[in-house]
């Protein structure tokens, strides 16, 4: 809670440091000073900072994130409308990154310095150094424009397709829950390119973390002992090696997912993905302070929630943490 309060307070002051005047943009070129002043007053931009802060705080804690000066819409509604798109993209990207990164990391650690390990390291370097937008452009050009394997970067579903009634906000899951598997497949088709773009790049840190953690675990005393007494290799690998590597890997996945919540602006822009990242990008361009504040607060809260989930996962993975809790209690 203290973290969330900190975010709420800090974000208010940070966005006000941004240069520019949203009222002038909103007023347009036909305006005059009077019109601009009216807009400033309408959106509370002419009030002293302490007054703005008081109003902001009182509204935020009732769930009201204000009105966007760009769209005149309610920021809370606009963010909630876009959030599922971002979460769905982030979720599948992290899943794909984990699917690529974890097995590759395990194999690379198990076959250290072999050609497999070298290939994995090359992949990690490529993934770490490749610009997201460049990879996205390549994938769009070849997989959509040239080969037509995937649909164009136009939204979450084809034009004319009605989205499923919202249960989770994830089109893939909602379609499946409604039994519309054709729609589910279509949702996956539109997800595929942005997910591959993000998944490829995000797999690199997971791979590196798994590999390093596994190597540490496999070189530990107890693993050497296990080997000496003839425990089967696969058992050593998964029961002793991977299990011990799970904590840092979970941390890495958590960090990657947290990064995805607010950091996939480029991919959302490139693929016309209607998420909160694109919303924030547009807000920054025109100094839409309320929208920007709302975005940071929502992402901040999600990030805090994510950390709580990771802590719970730690406890599930490592019994010592649970036991420690009991002792402390």
């Amino acid at each position, binding site marked *: 809670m203290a973290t969330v309060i900190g975010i709420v307070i800090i974000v208010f002051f940070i966005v006000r440091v941004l240069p520019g005047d949203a009222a002038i943009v909103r007023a347009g070129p036909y305006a005059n000073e009077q019109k601009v002043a009216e807009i400033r007053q309408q959106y509370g931009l002419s009030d002293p900072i302490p007054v703005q802060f008081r109003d902001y705080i009182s509204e935020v804690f009732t769930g009201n994130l204000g009105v966007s000066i760009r769209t005149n819409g309610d920021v809370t509604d606009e963010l909630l*409308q876009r959030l599922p798109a971002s979460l769905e993209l982030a979720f599948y990207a992290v899943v794909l990154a984990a699917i690529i990164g974890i097995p590759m990391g395990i194999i690379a650690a198990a076959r250290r310095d072999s050609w497999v390990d070298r290939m994995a390291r090359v992949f990690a370097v490529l993934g770490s150094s490749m610009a997201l937008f460049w990879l996205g452009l390549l994938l769009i050009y070849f997989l959509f424009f040239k080969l037509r394997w995937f649909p164009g970067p136009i939204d979450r579903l084809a034009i004319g397709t009605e989205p499923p009634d919202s249960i989770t906000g994830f089109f893939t899951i909602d379609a499946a829950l409604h039994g519309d598997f054709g729609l589910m497949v279509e949702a996956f088709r539109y997800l595929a390119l942005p997910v591959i773009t993000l998944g490829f790049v995000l797999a690199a840190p997971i791979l590196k973390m798994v590999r390093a953690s596994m190597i540490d675990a496999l070189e530990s005393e107890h693993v050497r002992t296990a080997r000496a007494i003839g425990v089967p290799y696969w058992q050593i690998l998964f029961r002793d090696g991977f299990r011990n590597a799970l904590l840092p890997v979970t941390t890495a996945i958590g960090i990657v997912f947290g990064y995805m919540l607010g950091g996939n602006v480029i991919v959302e822009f490139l693929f016309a993905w209607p998420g909160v990242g694109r919303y924030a990008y547009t807000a920054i361009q025109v100094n839409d302070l309320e929208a920007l504040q709302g975005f940071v607060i929502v992402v901040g809260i999600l990030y805090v929630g994510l950390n709580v989930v990771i802590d719970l996962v730690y406890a599930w993975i490592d019994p010592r943490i649970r036991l420690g809790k009991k002792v402390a209690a």
Partner: protein
Amino acid sequence: MKSNKRRARTGAWWVVVLVVLALIAAACASDEGTTTTTTAAPGTTQAGDDGGTTTTTAATPSDEKPRMVVALSDTVTTVEPHTFRSTSAYAVTHAVYEPLIVQLPEAQDGGWLLGSRSDHVGAGAESYDIQLTDDGGMLATFTLREDAKFDDGSPVTAEDYKYVFQRSIEGPGYIGVLLPFIGISSADQLTVIDDYTFEIKASVQSPLFERFMTFQVFGALNQALLDANATADDEWAFAFMNDKSAGSGPYFISEYNPDTQVILEPNPNYWDAASVANSGVVIRTVPDATQRAQLVRSGELDVATGIPERLLPELEADPNVNVIEIPTTGVHYMAMNINLIPNVDVRKAIIAAVPYDALIDQVMFGYAAPARGVVTSQMDTYDPAIGAGYATDLDLAAQHLANSGETDVSLVLGVRESRLTDQEAAVLIQENLRQMGIDVEVQVLPDADWAARASAGELPLLIHDWFSWGEDPFYQMQFLTQCGSFVNYSQFCNDTYDELVNTGKFSVDQAVRNDVSSQAQQIMFDNAIWAPLWSTTRTVATGKCVTGLELGYSQVPSFRFLTKTDDC
């Protein structure tokens, strides 16, 4: 305990396997058979709880008319018709609100339509008459169509048109700033003669009056609906209209998602519904211009605007794409702030050093014409003798700089982050000025910061662009260079110049307009406040089989006749 763990692990692996399979299936699945088309049928306007028409309708499209998909250059910000908004938002409102008269559409090669600059025809009005009056004003009488209806089926009356003008004058929108240009400043000048006769008495004789009447911002608004949704704080229902449509034009808004998609359905009660050539228009936001180009090439988009000029040659070579090119009177210019660059010889040196041809060739890839002044080379009353002075001449530039007596000139050139062409132009200008010994620092600024600094007169040099609805030279001069104008970024103030502009804008005598315009152009040239970089050529990419896109004074596309054929 162990078996629970095993089950959990097995479950986790199943999730992973399913996701992989789903992604593989996604890649392999065909496009066919996976889309459910949902459109509104003609005749099924659906009102929301609040009386607006934003609810998504589900019905069947016309069997014969295609549904068109359009991606414009920016996002739809608001559809409130009297609030300043994005270009895409103007396209939406253009489709929804019908003005009293419209430009006569003239067919062009390639199957698109250009609004006539001289001939107008009735739209909301069946007929109209405009007379000059003895007191130096104008009297316009509009006889409305009795069969015109709003999308909810209620009739359009003279009261609704009066309401629009009254809302423009007295409401908080920006339109009131424009109306004095045609001599309208009070609701007293608006008279409802009867249900279908509406009269406007203008206090001046403006050659722009008829053109103004075609502007979408004066399209009929459903007064009863707006009154029902007005509040004490918002008597003109601006908040209500932010995401609703209440018009009598060819379409109504059936779905509104700012930043994502707007769906326009044909208005079943439109008086000329049969003329609407499509079964609806989907306006999609595709923020990346390169992707817009690829989507129109692949056939997923029927119309795309805002395609970067560097991509146009490739599009023109594509047999699946038509590129429409329309020379406009729009101007791209570099303003010089006379307060921050007070030496007129320095400004003249800058004007002579700008690489005008290179900008058109290398930045605009030939999709532009020389601008030659605030009254551009494509514009009525343009004086070519004065315009010829805006040419690259480095020797002359050096001479002006020597005359200025200034050395070590160092300036900031501000450009907007969202305008890549401006940034590219700035680099070419910077290089030429460097050769002259003028050091230019190009600052790429967030749009809001640029706007604030430009308005505050803090930028010595800046690149801006402008297009005047109505394409009138005096309208353009008033906004861009007259004393006190909000976008007079040069901070130029000259009484004689202002007097000439005022004379021209209220004169219907072409000879007088030509004369005062030339004098004004000369003053502007002598004071060296602008380097006019280029005059914009509007480009629109359409699918090969797409026809009927219409463009008029506002350059905002009109979709009424937009369609596509299978046998092109």
